[in-house]
């Protein structure tokens, strides 16, 4: 009863703990007010003028038949009354399909100005943000004279640089508000170049480039991580340059910023919580089993058949072939396979049955020899052990498969074990073993290979059964306890939570409740 209450309370409390540990997306650093008016001194205009750029209001597009005109308002202070200095009518040429521009040629060089745009629509007067102060500056003429109808490239703005979070250093993240000329599917916009320097005054060198468009739709920013030879602890300054129709426009210079290594990946707090629950459960049940309590483990047909398989080989006077996969000792499946090899080798030693273990990796050969030797020693048959029982063939996948197939066809073992990590050669091996009439027991944690083993072998250990085999065959209390802990702390809790969040996600898809959608998104796959 206590265990049931504990499980239920865990299932109810856990989602809240996970929610607290969950790190949501950060706040956006950029702003996109209505119109998103941006104003600057016209580059390359030696006479001095100011160009305004804004996003067209909804309804003002190339397919519209009519739209109210935009009034351009100017003032010399943000609080003073604004005077109308011009209009942009519906049929004026557009800067881009989504933006409009206006050139204020009446601005005098020297004073600062504030601008806003206003439009009388059917819904009422819609005004833009106030942009300023901006000064008209007589700029050196460009390569070609600037015409009134020429479209000006506006720079990216609000560039922000910071150390890339949750990494091992050597990376700096940039985010900025895209240039108004950065329109989706624009043929003239050519992306952004990234420039970096260790000093605010330069010299700046180009360290990367990226395409146009917003990369973080939720936060409305363009982001890029600069990892090119970034040294931790060194201060860097950046600016971003938009490229459009052969022209470039620079953003503000942002910095200084230093990259550094983080100790913890805060975005994986949920994984930490779940892993903690799993480990706690395993340790609890290991102690529970050590206290002498009996634990029920369901029958696994493949492992129950190991005795029978070894006995069959003994009766027929043929050998046992054990294949521990084709991966190296750094793969958990290989280690799981070798623990099973130890049990099988002990049985083979007791029955005096010949055992052959062809391997695909040298380190596996060394480990397997130790395991088999120890097993023969424990069975009291050290004289039956021979180093050549475990031998190396080749690292090559199909070369190994060819070698093992040849071994099977010539020696015709009565029993074949496939325990470890396999790839495409799994079916070749299993079918060859089937053709010689051997009893085959397979076990792998490669989901793509399981169907082949199931089709061709007599018994198959599926996924976690391979890792449970060591505990199952040894019947040791501590090992059985870890199995129980893995089932309770892992499967029971995870699948209960999965059920809860599936229900929530289903409700969220039908309702407008943002809260339920937010909760459901915590466990969505990103």
């Amino acid at each position, binding site marked *: 009863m206590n265990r049931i209450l504990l499980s239920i309370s865990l299932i109810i409390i856990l989602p809240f703990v996970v929610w607290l540990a969950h790190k949501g997306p950060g706040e956006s650093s950029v702003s996109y007010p209505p119109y998103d008016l941006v104003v600057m001194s016209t580059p390359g205009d030696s006479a001095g003028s100011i160009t305004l750029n804004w996003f067209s209001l909804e309804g003002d597009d190339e397919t519209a038949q009519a739209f109210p005109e935009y009034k351009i308002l100017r003032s010399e202070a943000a609080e003073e009354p604004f005077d109308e200095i011009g209009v942009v009518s519906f049929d004026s040429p557009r800067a881009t399909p989504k933006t409009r521009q206006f050139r204020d040629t009446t601005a005098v060089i020297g004073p600062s100005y504030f601008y806003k745009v206003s439009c009388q629509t059917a819904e009422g007067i819609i005004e833009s943000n106030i942009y300023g102060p901006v000064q008209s500056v007589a700029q050196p003429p460009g390569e070609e004279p600037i015409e009134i109808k020429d479209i000006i490239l506006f720079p990216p703005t609000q560039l922000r640089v910071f150390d890339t979070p949750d990494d091992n250093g050597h990376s700096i993240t940039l985010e900025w508000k895209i240039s108004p000329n950065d329109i989706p599917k624009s043929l003239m916009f050519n992306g952004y170049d990234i420039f970096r320097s260790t000093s605010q005054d330069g010299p700046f060198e180009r360290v990367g480039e990226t395409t146009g468009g917003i990369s973080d739709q939720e936060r409305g920013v363009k982001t890029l991580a600069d990892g090119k030879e970034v040294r931790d602890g060194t201060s860097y300054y950046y600016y971003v340059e938009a490229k459009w129709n052969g022209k470039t426009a620079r953003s503000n210079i942002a910095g200084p910023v230093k990259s550094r290594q983080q100790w913890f990946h805060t975005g994986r707090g949920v994984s930490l919580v779940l892993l903690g629950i799993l480990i706690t459960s395993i340790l609890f049940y290991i102690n529970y089993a050590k206290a002498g309590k009996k634990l029920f483990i369901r029958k696994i047909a493949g492992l129950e058949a190991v005795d029978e398989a070894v006995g069959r080989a003994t009766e027929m006077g043929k050998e046992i072939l054990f294949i521990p996969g084709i991966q190296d000792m750094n793969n958990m499946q290989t280690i799981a396979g070798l623990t099973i090899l130890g049990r099988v080798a002990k049985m083979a030693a007791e029955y005096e049955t010949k055992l052959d273990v062809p391997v695909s990796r040298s380190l596996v050969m060394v480990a397997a020899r130790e395991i088999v030797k120890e097993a023969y020693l424990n069975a009291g048959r050290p004289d039956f052990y021979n180093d050549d029982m475990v031998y190396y063939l080749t690292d090559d996948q199909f070369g190994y498969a060819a070698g093992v197939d040849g071994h099977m066809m010539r020696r015709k073992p009565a029993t074949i074990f496939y325990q470890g990590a396999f790839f495409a050669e799994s079916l070749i091996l299993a079918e060859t073993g089937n053709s010689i009439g051997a009893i085959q027991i397979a076990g792998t944690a490669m989901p793509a290979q399981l169907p082949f083993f199931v089709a061709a072998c007599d018994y198959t250990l599926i996924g976690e059964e391979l890792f449970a085999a*060591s505990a199952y065959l040894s019947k040791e209390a501590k090992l059985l306890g870890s199995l129980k802990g893995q089932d309770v702390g892992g499967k029971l809790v995870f699948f209960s939570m999965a059920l809860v969040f599936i229900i929530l996600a289903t409700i969220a898809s039908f309702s407008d409740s943002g809260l339920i959608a937010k909760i459901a998104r915590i466990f969505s796959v990103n």
Partner: protein
Amino acid sequence: MGDLADTFSDWYSIISAFAIWLGALNLMKISIEKVSKKQKDWFFAIATIVSFLLIVIVGFFFSGGRQFLDLGTRFDWLYRYIYSPLSATMFALLAFFVASASYRAFRARNAQATVLLLAAFIVMVGRTPFGDWMSSMLFLPEGWRISNLTNVIMNYLNVAGQRAIMIGIALGIVSTSLRIILGIERSYLGGE
């Protein structure tokens, strides 16, 4: 920690590279013993020895002053015209083995096997133009075309099953790793 992990990974690669000599020498030792003692099937061991020595000697000594992996070297010729065709031949065996395994596995012995047979039929036929042609001949609505049924089976039923297996595998790996870290499981080191 990331740099430390990279360092350990590099050390593992270095040790593996040296360890390969253990395997190669063991292979030669066993093959030579087979030939010298004229054990059963010793002539296959001759093929192993000759192939091994051929590749090693050509790779080390007959590269014409270039890197042995460069295009045009003798080693490259051996790779392209002997190794690659042999590898492709082994891979091609899979096609025949899939057919023979399917023939044995897809039998309507019981309810589950029948469901397996139907699902396999729908997926195999649905992946070919013949499937949709057959659906159109039967005047099935758009959502019930065999190719759509194939997508449903592969994208929902198959993925659900695979994910369940992978969750179990992940839990098994965590549990086994914990047992190894705590020293409860020592049999892979040759202990009990």
